[in-house]
Structures are given as C-alpha cells and as structure tokens.
C-alpha cells in the first residue's frame, strides 16, 4: 500500500493550539506550490544543483506530512541528482502529487 500523508506530526507540533495549527497549515499551503514550481523549473532546465536544492527544501514538508518513506526517497533522490542521476523523478513526483492532494483536504 502506498504511503499516505497524515497529520500526526502536525498534531504533535500544535499540541491542541488551534490558532497555531491554522497558521501553520496556511503557511504550508502557501509555500508548498511555490517549492514544487521551483523544483519543476529546475528539473525541466536540467539545472543539477538547483534541482537538488529544491528537493532538499521539499524534504521538510515531506516529513511534516508524515511521509517517512517519502522522506527517505527524497534524501536518496537529492544525493543522486548531485551525481546527475534523475531516476527517482517519477517516484518523487508521485510523492508531491499525494501531498498536493492531501493539502487540499486540510483546513
């Protein structure tokens, strides 16, 4: 079964503080599409360092949404990009898509 994003880390982080929770989700929703956009642009232009940096930045949000396996994939992908290997691109795209879908359900 494919790993699904979840809010266990967010809940632990917010500790019942609804105001902070709202603020956090709002910021993640705002920031995530831009980070994905930066990744896609760098990937399409085959800019190795920029693509690796974009993956690196996305790792934090992957972990915030509880994707432990997804995080490991991102770590490996970032290392491989720095060596010019983009084999994990599709797998990484799937992670980003699942996050994007999940974030739309968060309020």
């Amino acid at each position, binding site marked *: 079964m494919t790993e699904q994003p979840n809010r266990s*880390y967010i809940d*632990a*982080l917010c500790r019942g*503080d609804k105001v*902070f929770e709202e*603020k*956090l989700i709002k*910021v*993640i929703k*705002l*920031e995530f599409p831009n980070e994905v956009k930066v990744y896609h642009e760098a990937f399409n232009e085959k800019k190795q360092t920029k693509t690796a*940096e974009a993956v*690196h*930045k996305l*790792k*934090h*949000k992957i*972990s*915030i949404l509880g994707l432990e396996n997804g995080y490991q994939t991102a770590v490996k992908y970032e290392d491989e990009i720095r060596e010019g290997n983009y084999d994990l691109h599709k797998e990484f795209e799937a992670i980003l898509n699942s996050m994007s879908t999940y974030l739309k359900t968060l309020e």
Partner: protein
Amino acid sequence: MKCIIIDDEATARLIIENYCSDIKGLQIIEQFSNAIDAMKYLNQHTVDLIFLDIHMPNFNGMDFIQTIKNPPNVILTTSDPNFAIEAFEYECIVGYLIKPIDLNKFNKAVQKAVTQFKSKKVENQKADVSLNEDDILYVNIDRRLIKIDMPSIYLVEAKGDYIMIKTETKNYIVHSTLKKIEEKLPDHTFLKVHRSYIINVQKIIDIEDNCVLIKKDIVPVSRSNRPILMKRLNLL
C-alpha cells in the same frame, strides 16, 4: 535572551517561533529569509542566539557564520546531517537540529545555549568590574588632570577652599569642596560622617565612641551622622 531566526522557509521559521514562545526568557526579535539581510541587521544590533538554517540560496549558513564578527551562540536547524562534524569545529555552534525538529531536542539545545549565555555574561561582568570607568575620578591639580582610582580612596578631608584626598598610595590636595566630591563618590562605599570628612566605609578598622579609625587616621563622627554610619555596618 534576544534571538533571531534565519531560514528561507516560512514553515520552518513558524515552527521555531512557536517552540520559542513556550520558553521563558527567550524572545524572537527578528526573522530573516536570507543570510544577507541578517548580516545587515547584525551590523547594527546585538543578539544572543541565532537559529540558523544551512541551505539557503546565495549565501549558506556556514558562510554566514564565517563572515560575522564575534558570532553569538548559534543553533543550526537543517535537513542536512552532513555538516554535523564541521559544525562542532565552531565554538559558537551549540546545537545541531535536524528538521523536522523534535521538541525535546530543541529544548535541550536551547538550554545549552542559555547556560553558555549565562556563563559568558558572568565572565563579561567580571571583566567589566576590573575595567569599570565608573571607578575612575579625575582631579585637577596644577592644571593637570590626575586619575584616581576611587576604591583606593579611604578618606577625604575638607581643608578650607581645598580638599585632601587620601588614597592607599598617595594623598592629593585639590581645589574643590567636600560637597562636590561627595556627589562624585559612590553612595554605597562612601559616607560623610562629619561636615569635614567623607570616609570609605569599607576601609574602617574600628569605631570607638564618636571616632572612626581608618588607616592611621582618627576621624570624628558627628552625632547626627552616627546613626547613618551604624546602619551601614554589618553588626553582629
């Protein structure tokens, strides 16, 4: 403790800010999305602790540490474990937190920073005491300004239009009044015991009736000033 956060990711800044809000005495005074703006800020302001991301565009966290003069304590907040060994070569780095940051690890790193901050503060205070400009008094003698270390003064005696300042090493005759020098001397150490005498309370050898023995000088204590003097003493 005044803190700043430097991280290009707003989510990370928000999480750190939230963790800090639970710690008494920790105050986030500014947040920066890049190291350059933070450097400009630090050129004009002093902070006690920096939460610093490593991977940032243009100028990364490690470059930042190497660039700033006298860096305060730094807690690195990063998704990259590869800088851990390099990080601890820097004296200012007191913590290395991997994102997503665990609250317990965050609190431990902050506690370490607080401890180091306090011990640094004590060291600085000790240094300040030995170099305290407030302890220095300049007196005009024959058109020369002579520097006198105030704690070394044990007695000041009025002599007409002059005062005699007696110190551990030397006596000075200065054209001034007891009232003027009384205003300059610190209250917690010096006391006017008579209309013609100010003494350094810490230099008293003994007190008998209405007289105080300081060094070899016997100084009269006026009846009205005696109760004030007695209050200043740590009597058994």
